[in-house]
């Protein structure tokens, strides 16, 4: 419940930052990172395919109807929904190495950007031509890859913090059974300190997880 609200708030913030700051920045190359797509992919990697595609659909729809969008309503919803689903699927089959979630994230973001250009071209958007895509796509991909690690770090840290808070509240009342739904994601904060370490989760929910979360829950209960 808390996570859904967090996801909604984060998506809204990403959309507003994208529209009011990033799109207007005169960055070299004439393109900007797609913060909303990056956030959707990061949320999908930590939360699974269902959460990813729902977040993607609604964040994309919001981006479609928020001014000054001039493309067709539904384009971003379609692309982000698919990107979120793909990232969620990919996140479920990751190994334990740190580079794997980052690689998956880069792959899904790149796929989303390319798909977005393809959909624009398919529906006859006059701004999306082969030469325009040739100029914009590499540059925006470059900016995306720069932003990806930081976005994943923040999403993992915040979702670890939120899950810890849920554990602290739920654990007091019903015991650790409530932790399992929160731990259904693929990538978790496995670190016990403040800085999260990006690592793919173990196969079964709860492996290498309850211990760290328990400590956090204890800390949260103390404060």
């Amino acid at each position, binding site marked *: 419940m808390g996570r859904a609200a967090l996801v909604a708030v984060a998506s809204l913030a990403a959309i507003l930052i994208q*529209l009011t700051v990033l799109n207007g920045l005169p960055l070299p190359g004439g393109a900007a990172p797609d913060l909303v797509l990056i956030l959707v992919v990061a949320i999908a990697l930590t939360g699974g395919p269902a959460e990813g595609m729902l977040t993607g659909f609604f964040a994309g729809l919001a981006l479609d109807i*928020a001014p*000054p969008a001039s493309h067709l309503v539904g384009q971003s919803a379609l692309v982000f929904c698919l990107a979120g689903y793909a990232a969620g699927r990919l996140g479920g089959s990751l190994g334990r190495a740190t580079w794997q979630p980052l690689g998956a994230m880069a792959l899904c973001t790149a796929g989303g950007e390319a798909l977005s250009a393809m959909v624009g071209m398919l529906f006859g958007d006059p701004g999306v031509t082969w030469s325009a895509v040739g100029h914009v796509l590499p540059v925006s991909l470059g900016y995306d890859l720069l932003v990806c690690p930081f976005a994943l770090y923040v999403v993992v840290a915040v979702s670890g913090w939120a899950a810890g808070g849920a554990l602290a509240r739920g654990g007091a009342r019903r015991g650790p059974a409530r932790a399992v739904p929160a731990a259904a994601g693929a990538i978790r904060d496995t670190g016990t300190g403040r800085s999260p370490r990006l690592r793919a989760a173990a196969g079964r929910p709860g492996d290498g997880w309850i211990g760290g979360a328990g400590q956090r829950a204890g800390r949260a209960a103390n404060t």
Partner: protein
Amino acid sequence: MHDTRRTRLVLGLLLAAALALITIDYRDGTASPLHSLSSFGGSVFGSAEGAVSLLTTPVRQLAGGSGSQAKIASLQRQLAQARAELSQERLSRAQSDQLDRLLRLAGRGGYRIVAANVIAAGPAYADTITIDAGRLDGIKANETVLNGAGLVGTVTAVSAATATVLLTTDASATVGVRLAGTGLIGAVTGTGKSISSAGLLRLQVFSGSAQLRPGQQLVTFGSADGTPYVAGVPVGVITQVEDAGSSLMRQALVRPFVSVASIGVVGVVVAPPRTNPRDSVLPPPPAPASTATAKPSSTATPKPASTATPGPGG
């Protein structure tokens, strides 16, 4: 629930919904239920953008003071200057400078304008902006938008407190123009991101005998009733004449007077001038020549909410 049948069912439903939305929007743009969805999004996100831009406008203004052509030295000088004078006061002074130039241009042409601030910008493939004035400020769709340097674009969508502006550099924007000092008529189309030097326009003059040369200035030809473009607004300067490969048409690249990166304060023309201002609004050419004396800018009606007032302590 990693990937159950239910997840796939929901995915299918969402994709179908997205495709249905695209189809409805593609078939009948403004006459569909989607129009109310879009205007709902316009009011909700428009007001949110307006609120957020109070915080983020300084960021964009510091970053967007100059065009991409600026040299490193001048950037460093600007950086030093920005560091020295990094305050809300300086930012609002920059805005009031822009507003001042805008009012002078509007006064020269006799355009009755509503001034507004830029609060958001569109994605990479589209050159669109959101401004913080809308239906409540008397703005309607298809009105011309200009700033102190010249033509910015035209209003495409209006919500209660915000409006969406299609810039002339967008690939879907076409403006009828006249070569200053001549009667030659043509059309400029935005190039979007399709050529490497961004922000240029392509001019097509439908006359095989027309003599185009770099340095010639363009003003808007003007549409019937002044929508979507009023007459006489400076558009740009021809930078390069192209070989159109046709004897019926001449083609050239045009650098617009307005640089997309530095648009801050704009004016929406709510009433066109009674007489066509012809070339009187153009900036003075490099060779010394007198321009028309500026009329008092009382015809302009700046929006009280815009930041013409100096900052606190300024």
